[in-house]
C-alpha cells in the first residue's frame, strides 16, 4: 500500500520535474514546477513530516511560484513562450550529463556500506517504529512527530538559535536587497514591484 503510493507520487513528481525542465512555455513550466512541489510535499507526508509539508506548500507554492510567475510576466512577453531557448543543440549534452550524474548517484546509493554501527542505506528497509510500546511510552522522535510545530519552535529557539538568527538576518538582507535591486530609479513609472518582490521573504519570516 505505502509502496504503491510512493511509486505513484514519485513517478508523478519526476514526470512533473522533467516537464518543468523541457517545457517551452515558461508559465507552463512554472505550473509543472508547482505540481512537483506538491509531490514533494506528499513525500514529506509519507515521511511523517506533515508540518514541513504544509510549510513546503505555503512557501513554495504560495510564494515562490507566484514570484516566479511575476518574474516571467515582467521579463517575457505575456504569453510566456521561450523562443530563444534552443533545446536541440544543448539537450543531448545536458541529458548525458544528467544521466551520468544519476547513474553515479544511484551507484553510490546502492553500494554504500554504512558506518560500523549503522546499516547501509540499501538495506534499511523500514523506518524506526514510533508506535507506543516499542521503546517506552514516550520517545523524542514520537513527541516531535506528534507535535512538530512545537518541537521545531523549541529546537530553533534553543539548540539551533544561531542558525535561526542567521536565517532571520538572511531574510532581512534578502528583503532589503530585493527591493533595492528591483527598485526603479525613474520617477515616471510609479513602482509597485517592491511589494510583491519582498513579500515571500517576509512571509517565510513570519512562518519560520
Amino acid at each position, binding site marked *: *500500500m*505505502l*509502496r504503491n503510493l*510512493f511509486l505513484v507520487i*514519485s513517478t508523478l513528481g*519526476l514526470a512533473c*520535474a*522533467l516537464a*518543468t*525542465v523541457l517545457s517551452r512555455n*515558461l508559465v507552463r513550466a512554472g505550473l509543472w*514546477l508547482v505540481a*512537483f*512541489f506538491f509531490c*514533494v510535499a506528499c*513525500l514529506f507526508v*509519507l*515521511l511523517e*513530516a506533515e508540518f*514541513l509539508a504544509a510549510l*513546503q506548500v505555503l512557501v*513554495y507554492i504560495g510564494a*515562490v511560484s507566484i514570484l*516566479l510567475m511575476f*518574474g516571467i510576466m515582467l*521579463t*517575457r512577453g505575456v504569453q510566456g513562450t521561450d523562443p530563444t*531557448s*534552443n533545446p536541440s543543440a*544543448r539537450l543531448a549534452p*545536458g*541529458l548525458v550529463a544528467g544521466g551520468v*550524474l*544519476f547513474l553515479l*548517484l544511484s551507484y553510490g546509493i546502492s553500494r554504500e556500506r554504512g558506518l560500523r554501527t549503522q546499516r547501509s*542505506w*540499501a538495506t*534499511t528497509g523500514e*523506518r*524506526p517504529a514510533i508506535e507506543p510500546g516499542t521503546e517506552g511510552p514516550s520517545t*523524542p522522535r514520537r513527541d516531535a512527530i506528534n507535535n*512538530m510545530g512545537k*518541537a*521545531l519552535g523549541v529546537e*530553533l529557539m534553543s539548540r*539551533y538559535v544561531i*542558525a535561526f538568527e542567521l*536565517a532571520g538576518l*538572511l*531574510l532581512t538582507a*534578502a528583503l532589503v*536587497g*530585493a527591493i533595492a*535591486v*528591483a527598485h526603479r530609479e525613474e520617477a515616471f513609472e510609479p513602482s509597485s514591484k517592491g511589494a510583491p518582490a*519582498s513579500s*515571500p521573504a517576509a*512571509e*517565510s519570516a513570519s512562518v*519560520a
Partner: protein
Amino acid sequence: MESDIPLDWFLLFAAAAFAIGLIGVLTRKNAIAVLMAIEIMLNAANVNLVAFWRYGPLRPEAGPIPGLVLAVMVLTVAAAEVAVGIGLILLCYRRFKAADVDQYDTLSG
C-alpha cells in the same frame, strides 16, 4: 501486510530529481527557467534530509529533529534566493533587454 518504503527509494527519487534539475540548469537559457531548475535541485536535497532524519538513528546531542531543522533552513534560503534572484533578473533584463543567461557576457571581454 503492509511493508514500509525502503530508504533508498527516497534517495533514488532525490537523485533523479537532482539530475533532472541539473539537466535544466545546463540546457535552459532563460534565467528564470534556470532558477526553477535550481529549485528542483534544492527540493531534492530536502527530500534527502528528511528521509535521513526519519530513517537514521538519533543522536542525543542533535535533538529530536536535526534533519527537519536543516530542511527548514533550506526552505528559508530558497525563499530568500528566489526573491533576490528575481530582483537580479529584472535588473539584468532592464540593462541587457534580455532574460537569457548567455547574453549577460559583459565580463567575457
